[in-house]
């Protein structure tokens, strides 16, 4: 099916060809007042739509020669003779007046029986109003014309006479309409556009792909009954480590894994009761001298767990589902799989139903909602949960199981010193890993490169 929609250029060319069925591109320029480039493109489009034929043809082009131009100005020699005869008849006068053209003019006039001549006199006999050749002469005028635009008989006389008409053979493109184009009704298509044509890409303004994943995950947590809590990225070691039963000499607390703020120790870290109980739990279970100055050292949080545990220690709820989401930091070498700063989400559940199978059930539901159904659980170890599990999800693209969120039940050594008496389920992990699955990325750094080409084109694949 042809689309009945034409560009303005196409319309003008079709209209012109309807009036004048075979034209050179140059002619079309004149008749349509389009630029050579527009004509070239228009012809190309019409050809593709099978609406125009382009014939490479040889065309005879005629223009006036020296004698032709003189005749255009003064009339053909025979016309001048016939005009003179209206007032004069003496042969010698005529000869004098017309000069060298008298002979040929006289010859033609006599041959055509327009005059009668004696030895001295010439008289008009029965001349036609328009002489042969006169029409062509006028038509050609100052132009170059294809012979086909002229009357063949009328031109032929001129062609035989010297220097009247110059003829040249040109190779030319000749454009004509195909039969289907001849029957087109241009008016019916007016107002429409070519809806099938290719269009340029528009640069999109959008939410950052990682932010989009974060929003999606936040929404899932909320719909699972969790409320969002906020907390600082800068935290005392007390909440980031001590409150979570990580001993002060634990390797994770070393400079090479954790970012410590240079020269900043927190003045106030917790209530005296909390400090006392937490330090006692450390001394008893880990057998070392707990140092409050170590707990005062400020760090960039290494997980969002410090935010949730602080919340639980303050609120001590009997029943709760809360989550915290945000940036966490690790002193790592940046690589395709490690960033110094990434996003983590952590949810906790307090209540009657807080048991391991329910925790696994929440995980399964969460993964289902982000589109991951192939999951399994493996035991693992975290210093602050017991039992502890990790979720493994199957990555179709990589063809293997990859580790996602970790989960567990807060150890009594964590909850008891802070006055939390109920079981607390905790689970969470890095969001970039999920976003990488969603956007088919192999290099996590892409999320923070702000490469416009990627931001403008990134598409979700899962």
């Amino acid at each position, binding site marked *: 099916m042809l689309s009945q929609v034409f560009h303005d250029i196409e319309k003008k060319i079709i209209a012109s060809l309807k009036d004048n069925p075979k034209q050179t591109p140059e002619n079309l320029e004149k008749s349509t007042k389009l630029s050579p480039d527009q004509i070239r493109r228009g012809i190309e489009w019409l050809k593709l739509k099978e609406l125009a034929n382009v014939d490479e043809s040889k065309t005879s082009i005629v223009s006036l020669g020296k004698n032709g131009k003189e005749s255009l100005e003064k009339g053909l020699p025979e016309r001048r003779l016939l005009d003179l005869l209206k007032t004069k008849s003496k042969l010698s006068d005529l000869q004098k007046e017309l000069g060298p053209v008298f002979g040929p003019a006289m010859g033609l006039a006599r041959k055509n029986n327009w005059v009668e001549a004696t030895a001295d006199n010439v008289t008009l006999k029965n001349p036609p109003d328009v002489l042969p050749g006169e029409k062509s002469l006028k038509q050609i005028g100052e132009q170059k014309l294809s012979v086909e635009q002229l009357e063949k008989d009328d031109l032929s006389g001129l062609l035989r006479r010297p220097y009247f008409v110059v003829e040249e053979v040109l190779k030319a493109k000749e454009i004509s309409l195909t039969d289907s184009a001849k029957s087109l009704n241009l008016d019916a298509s007016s107002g429409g556009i070519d809806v099938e044509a290719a269009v340029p890409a528009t640069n999109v303004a959008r939410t950052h792909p990682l932010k989009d994943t974060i929003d999606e995950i936040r929404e899932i947590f*909320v719909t699972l009954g969790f409320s969002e809590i906020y907390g*600082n990225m800068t935290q005392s070691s007390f909440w980031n480590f001590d409150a979570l039963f990580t001993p002060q000499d634990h390797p994770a607390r070393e400079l090479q894994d954790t970012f410590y703020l240079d020269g900043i120790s927190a*003045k106030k870290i917790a209530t005296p009761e909390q400090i006392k109980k937490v330090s006692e739990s450390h001394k008893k279970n880990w057998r070392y001298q707990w140092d409050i100055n170590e707990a005062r050292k400020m760090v960039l949080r290494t997980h969002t767990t410090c935010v949730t545990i602080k919340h639980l220690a303050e609120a001590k709820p009997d029943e709760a589902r809360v989550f915290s989401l945000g940036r966490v930091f690790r002193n790592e070498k940046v690589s395709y799989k490690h960033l110094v700063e990434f996003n983590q989400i952590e949810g906790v559940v307090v209540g009657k139903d807080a048991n391991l199978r329910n925790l696994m059930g929440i995980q399964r539901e969460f993964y289902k909602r982000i589109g991951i159904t192939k999951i399994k659980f*493996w035991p693992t170890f975290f210093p602050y949960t*017991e039992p502890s599990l990790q979720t493994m999800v199957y990555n179709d693209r990589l063809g293997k199981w990859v580790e996602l969120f970790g989960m567990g039940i807060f150890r009594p050594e964590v909850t008891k010193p802070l006055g939390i008496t109920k079981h607390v389920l905790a689970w969470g992990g890095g969001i970039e890993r999920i976003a990488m699955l969603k956007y088919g990325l192999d290099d996590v750094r892409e*999320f923070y490169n702000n490469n416009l080409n990627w931001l403008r084109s990134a598409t979700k694949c899962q």
Partner: protein
Amino acid sequence: MPVVELSYSSLQKLIGKASKKQIADSLPFLGLDIESEDKDLVRIEYSPNRPDYSTDFGIALGMQGLLGIKTGAVKLKIKKSKQYSISVKPDVAKVRPFVTGIVAKNGKIDDKTIKQLMAMQEDLHFGIGRKRKKSSIGIHDLDKIQFPLVYTTSDRKHKFTPLNSGKELSIDEILKTTEVGEDYGDLLANSSKMPLILDANKEIVSFPPIINAAVTTVTTKTKNLFVEVTGINKDDAEDMLSVVATILQSAGFSLESVQISGAKNSTPKLAERKMTVSPSLINQTLGLNLNTSKIISSLKKSRLDASAKGKNIVCVIPAYRFDIFGPMDLVEEVALGYGIQNLEPTLSPSQTLGQTNPVSLQLKSLSQTMIGLGYLEALNSSLTSIRVLYEMANREPKTIISVRDSKSQEHTILRDSILPGLLENLSKNIHESYPQKLFETGTVFSSGNPVSEKTSFSGISAHQDANFTEIKSVLQSALKTGFDLEIKTKTTEQPSFEKGHCADVIINGKTIGVIGEINSKIIENYKIRVPVVGFEISLSESILKSL
């Protein structure tokens, strides 16, 4: 996480009655992650709380339990011997007060076993030994040592030939010229006296926690071993010894005791502990309804002993399982023995109503407005560099909050502004098509105690016709649409902005940020070829409302 390399075939031999596939499939359910596999070789990541998994002997013990081949606690059989003793002198109290040890006889030691024991020793040193600070091990050829031994101190001039060295060195030279000396010498820095274990001939056996003597080096010809552990805490030293003893027994050695006395030291008992757990805690925590016998069989699969006592269950925990602090740890042992794969996830309906933080909602709404205005959302790190934050942005630092020992030069200080990061983003995109319009909302930090964390909002527009009117109009629309706030602008000067094209942004009479054309010097330095306009305002004080 520490990693141990071992082979399936030797695991199979140790476990007995298990196929390679069975072993590979079960490893994760012991809490062991397969890091990589190459035919028979497998690299396994284990948790630092289970140092017994640092050798194939330990993993085989766990696997036998899980597969039901051998269950119940591993019993240490230690023959009481009076042949071996260490007497401790009081002068060690100030530097490294405790020593403990054991003898292991008639084992087969090949290259592979030596390699495994060395790897185990290093993992123990690093993990529970806290880089040898808390406790450290020396493993020696028993037959090169004349008992009884003395644990005492000496000055730094004392000479002996240390392991891996062809010549005699003084203690001072060992600390200054050898790799181990440099790495661990600090542990002794507070003392002029150096701890030493000497044998009956006053020959040095060990210089803990630094190095053994060369003479007691364990080789493939060694049949009998002497293991000593020193440390700053008796219990920690005995914990470490219990792991080594358990592994050596599993490797086929017969254990014999070493008598230790003097200066608050005593012979190690490496005794089992008893701990009571109630079935209701187990079932409540796991969401199961297991009867007593199923609980007991699950605990036995986790290589513990267990028996019913009234309504409760009493567990017998071998010494090497010092990772078990209390009943909740036993709950996990039940879960592991029961099989994590046998726990069916359940979903109980939420008793609570979920709620997005109102601040998140407001930020989301602001983002949507900016996107509607044609701006693309960017994300930059909070940790950035002096170059991006100050040098390139032509800004003067006030108080810089920096982190210690960052491994990345690009991430050394916390940002106090978002705009410089967006300028850096433009510079990385000069080959992309214009207009380029970016915005970001995020946390900015300023010094204080506690450190101040505020939410900031910045936008930037770069193209041939970018101008002040355009960016003011964008900010005006964003704040009007999202927050029904009117902004005013008042001439100001800021080094990041072009003089005469820069204004304070004022809401309700309060300056909350700055807007204007970016200083042409910055644009030039970043090789950006179009004008850039931008703004940054603080959202925390007057704009975002929390509940």
